């Protein structure tokens, strides 16, 4: 599958979302992030640079992750947000919850 997880430091994980996050791989995304939370990760940087599809199931899995880490004072942030992802974020008015950064590096700097 197209997901790629990289540990930045103990608390922060970078997830490269790939071409799509939708009903086909949303449960995989959920499971992999859950493993990371169990191992101590609190912050997630989601890299959307190649993402053409984010459907409601995919978005739901990101929401679940947010619900999971926010009581732990963790954050879910979006990096390199592509146009289709931006459309969904605008529609659902979730930009108030998921901070956006122009690049993964910029997100890392802020979260560090």
């Amino acid at each position: 599958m197209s997901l790629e997880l990289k540990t930045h430091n103990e608390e922060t994980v970078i997830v490269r979302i790939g071409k799509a996050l939708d009903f086909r791989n949303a449960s995989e995304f959920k499971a992999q992030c859950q493993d990371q939370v169990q191992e101590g990760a609190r912050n997630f940087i989601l890299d959307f640079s190649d993402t053409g599809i984010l459907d409601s199931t995919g978005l739901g899995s990101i929401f679940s992750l947010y619900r999971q880490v926010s009581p732990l004072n963790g954050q879910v942030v979006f990096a390199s947000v592509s146009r289709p992802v931006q459309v969904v974020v605008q529609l659902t008015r979730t930009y108030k919850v998921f901070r956006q950064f122009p690049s993964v590096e910029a997100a890392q700097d802020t979260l560090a």
Partner: protein
Amino acid sequence: MAENSILIVEDERTLRRLLEYRLGKTYRVRTAANGEEALAYVHEEAPDLIVSDIMMPKMDGFALQDALSEEKSTRAIPFIFLTAKADETSKQRGMRTGVDDYITKPFDIDQLLSRIDRLLERANVYQSQLDAKLGQDFSERLMPKRMPEEPGYDATFYNKPREYGGGDIFDWKKAGDDYFFTLGDVMGKGLQAKFYAFSFLGYVRSSLKAMMDSTRSPAKLMQKINQVLVEDEVMENTFASLLLIRWNPKRHELTYANAGHCRPVLVTDNGPELITYSDMILGLKGDTEYQDSTLTIPPGAAFMAYTDGLMEQQPPDGTMLGEEGVMRCTENLHTDDAPIDRLLEQVLDASHNDQFDDDILVFWLQRHA
């Protein structure tokens, strides 16, 4: 469709590895060396089918089968015995305890594969028939049987659920001179989404009923529904976009709160117009605030609301039609006799395929000229 999973239970290492290798080409395979191990795996994650030896140390195949039959959740897992015991007694004993097939060693691997295929196919067909039936039932219950009738107006809606669609909901209630419409989409796909949508609609209905005496503000109602959704463990991880609309036909007024839902459209002689104000989707943050907005429906104009199935239709360039695309398809339809039919036609004309991929829901409120 997801890959089927098979559990192989065999104490002889060579045969176990051979089966793992051959079946692993087509299925997701786990192996266990005896019944005890197998039972532990099954409780972790039930496989779609079990292939088991009979004679094994610790717990043999019969004991495993007995243990599985005792529990409702494991009783129906297709089960194939694989054994050197060719004698009639054990065969009959195996068959009697609810085993689906019986293959004696030495066996032909292709024969085993074709029997596995047949059993899995049968199970999958039952499952999808059941899903379709339940999904249909949920879908019907999530939609009203009739619509409000008010002089000077036509209120209509169209809904076409897909077997693998999502959790669209639509409902209305009369309260004095007002009508309250609920239109939304619970996130997710398939039967699970429909089930969540069904419970969610229950919450919405009871919240409306409980609060109607103290407030008529869609935003206040929305705030309450969001809190319940975030705080209630049963509804944990349920996210929904929702439009709550209060309609007063005498004053020709619509007051609405929008929680991250596709924005409705007002169609007039000046062309279609997006009704822009909206707040965050439900279920994410308990302290989210919602706001009411009010608009007046001019004579001859129409108000249209819908769910994302329309918007997610793909034009030939592979993008999404989007809110703008749907809005363009409503142009001049306020003078049409069958506006919803025309709208669906135009959306399909703009898409690369000739049918809808997702649930379709459209609500059309037409004021007479």
